[in-house]
């Protein structure tokens, strides 16, 4: 029952295997749909139609995907450093504060692209800030970062409600939210981009933060595989003792890695706050921080994988809404279930099909062992 180290061709390892895992997750979800008494084929039809059927659907899908790219990247950067950041949700929430401060201060006096720069910086700073304490505690005191980041999600929720209700709420408004940002505080939609492909964006809030997400993905790729600091992060994440040996400062690397991770999560707030709602409101992260975990897992912590996985989850979100729209018996929680199954099969059970695939695709042992022996 050994699970030998991967000698699978790359396309199997990074293509077929994850695809298979996701397929099984979907098949099981289909069974649940069947169990509830609905037709899974119909369900898939509604889902795909809703998510990819027209320009607006696609734009919505990409809008959601934008959120997941940010949070997925956040989880992935920490993962590379061997850190499990479950605090994306809270970091996104705090990031919203940074966006709001930027937008509220500048929306009346500056064009959107100036505001966006300030808001992005604010989002990054606040998200990073929220990751700082867990990171510092992990590095200095050995407090388990999984637990502290979870705690910080709860604390963030309380803090944000306090601020929204008591401090930055727009007076006279019923719901705890800021005033609407004016033009200078709203990110332009990407209608022109859709137009290029002959598609109509409709009313979808698909906006410039998608491009920022793509830039962030590229930046993360550069960081992890092309910079010295990325090299240090990876060393720490894959072999902690080797990192000590190599003189990589543990505290600094943990803290900075988490600051980047938290900052990326925080940047997600741009999309819903400045790109869509045009205001900061309660509970706006809506679980995207947690979806980031699934996305990072599925994308194997690689930016390209994360973008693909994010789009898949975007399809799920948008398609799922369409599905719930047209099949009232299927409530929106089916999406949470599918996410859970994807995490299970693409994450925890990722090796389940490996032996079978190795039997199918792996070159025979003799060929695999490097021909040369030591001198």
């Amino acid at each position, binding site marked *: 029952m*050994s*699970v*030998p*180290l991967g000698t699978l061709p790359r396309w199997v390892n990074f293509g077929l295997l994850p695809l298979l895992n996701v397929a099984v997750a979907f098949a099981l979800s289909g069974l*649940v749909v069947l*169990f*509830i*008494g609905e037709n899974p084929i119909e369900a898939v039809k509604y889902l795909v139609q809703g998510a990819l059927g027209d320009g607006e659907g696609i734009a919505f899908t990409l809008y959601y995907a934008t959120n997941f790219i940010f949070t997925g990247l956040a989880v992935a950067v920490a993962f590379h450093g061997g850190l*499990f950041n*479950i605090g994306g949700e809270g970091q996104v929430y705090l990031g919203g504060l940074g966006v709001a401060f930027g937008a509220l201060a500048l929306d009346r006096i500056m064009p959107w692209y100036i505001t966006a720069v300030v808001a992005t910086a604010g989002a990054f700073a606040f998200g990073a800030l929220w990751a700082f*304490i*867990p990171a510092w*505690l992990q590095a200095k*005191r*050995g*407090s*388990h970062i*999984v*637990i*502290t980041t*979870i*705690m*910080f999600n*709860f*604390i963030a929720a*309380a*803090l944000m*409600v*306090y601020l929204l*209700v*008591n401090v930055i709420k727009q007076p006279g408004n019923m719901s705890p939210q800021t005033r609407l940002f004016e033009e200078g505080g709203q990110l332009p939609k990407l209608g022109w981009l859709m137009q290029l492909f002959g598609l109509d964006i409709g009313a979808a809030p698909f906006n410039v933060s998608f491009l920022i997400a793509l830039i962030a993905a590229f930046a993360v790729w550069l960081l992890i595989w092309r910079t010295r600091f990325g090299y240090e992060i990876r060393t720490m994440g894959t072999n902690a003792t080797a990192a000590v040996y190599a003189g990589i400062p543990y505290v600094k690397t943990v803290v900075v890695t988490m600051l980047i991770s938290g900052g990326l999560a925080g940047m997600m707030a741009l999309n819903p706050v400045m790109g869509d709602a045009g205001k900061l409101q309660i509970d706006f992260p809506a679980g995207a921080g*947690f979806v980031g*975990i*699934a996305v990072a*897992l599925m994308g194997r912590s690689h930016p390209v994988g994360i973008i693909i996985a994010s789009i898949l989850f975007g399809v799920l979100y948008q398609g799922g809404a369409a599905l719930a729209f047209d099949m009232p*018996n*299927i*409530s929106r*929680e*089916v*999406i*949470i*279930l*599918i*996410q*859970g*199954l994807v*995490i*299970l099969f693409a*994450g*925890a*059970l*990722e*090796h*389940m099909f490996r032996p079978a695939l190795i039997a199918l695709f792996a070159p025979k042992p003799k060929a695999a062992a490097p021909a040369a022996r030591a001198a």
Partner: protein
Amino acid sequence: MDFADLIQILAATVRLSVPLIFTALAGLYAERSGIFDIGLEGKMLFAAFSAASVATVTGSAWLGLFAGILTGVLLSLLHGFASITQRGNQIISGVAINFIASGLTILLGNAWFGQGGRTPQLPNSARFTEITLPFAADIAPIPVLGPIYSGLISGQNILVYLAFLAVPFTWWVLYRTRFGLRVRAVGENPGAVDTAGISVAWLRYRALICCGILAGFAGTYLSVAQSASFIREMSAGKGYIALAALVFAKWKPLNVLLTCLLFGFLDAASIRLQGIILPGIGEVPVQLIQALPYILTVILLAGFIGKAIPPKAGGVPYVKER
């Protein structure tokens, strides 16, 4: 604050700490055997759902408890399959279970009862209700002892008593039985267990079954004893708090009891401290008080216990052959 207030706060402490005790003990079995279990939250939630559903349909709290336990065990076995048999990442498996529980409970609840994932309100006959111990009323007037007996010890439901019994029982299992010896050993060095001719996998599965049973109790307590129906997301982070309690308790049963009582007390106090005015500071924001248990958890984790040393083999799958 007078003595009666104190008793009331302590009674609330007991009520609020029970799910934590069950869940933290559940985690203790798993983690002592070397399997991290961040999916406690999901197990508790799903067990709460099953217990309430079955109690609704059958009208029996005990059948509900049975269903809750069964659910806890099944989810534990899933966790075991992923992390023992398939050697998957234990944290990821736990996160997955949390997602699945949170989605599936509402989905099934909605399909079965059509109330948006809620189960119908249980009549008292289908719940675990308060048990008044003998002489509670007679003793009540006696100062100090009276209120303690009648207000704190008496008048809890059966699961509360079971939770408090589960602590010494777990201690006894862990330190006085063969099974306990082996569980402790396998969490430290599975190789030692393996070469002693004991199956590491089966031993860990059994520890996870214990974990599932206790998580089942916790869930049942939430939906069939403490309240009278299943509500979506009703576990509300207790699984995570229990996990924190377990770390704080350094994976020891008696410490678990104390830590859970402390967290329960914080929660009880936070409920009662709402809206109090502190001299010089003014009204304490309710959000601060509500976040207090979480903040304290972080402070405690960071400050007082420093590095809690988990079972050495925890979190890593047992791989003999690379």
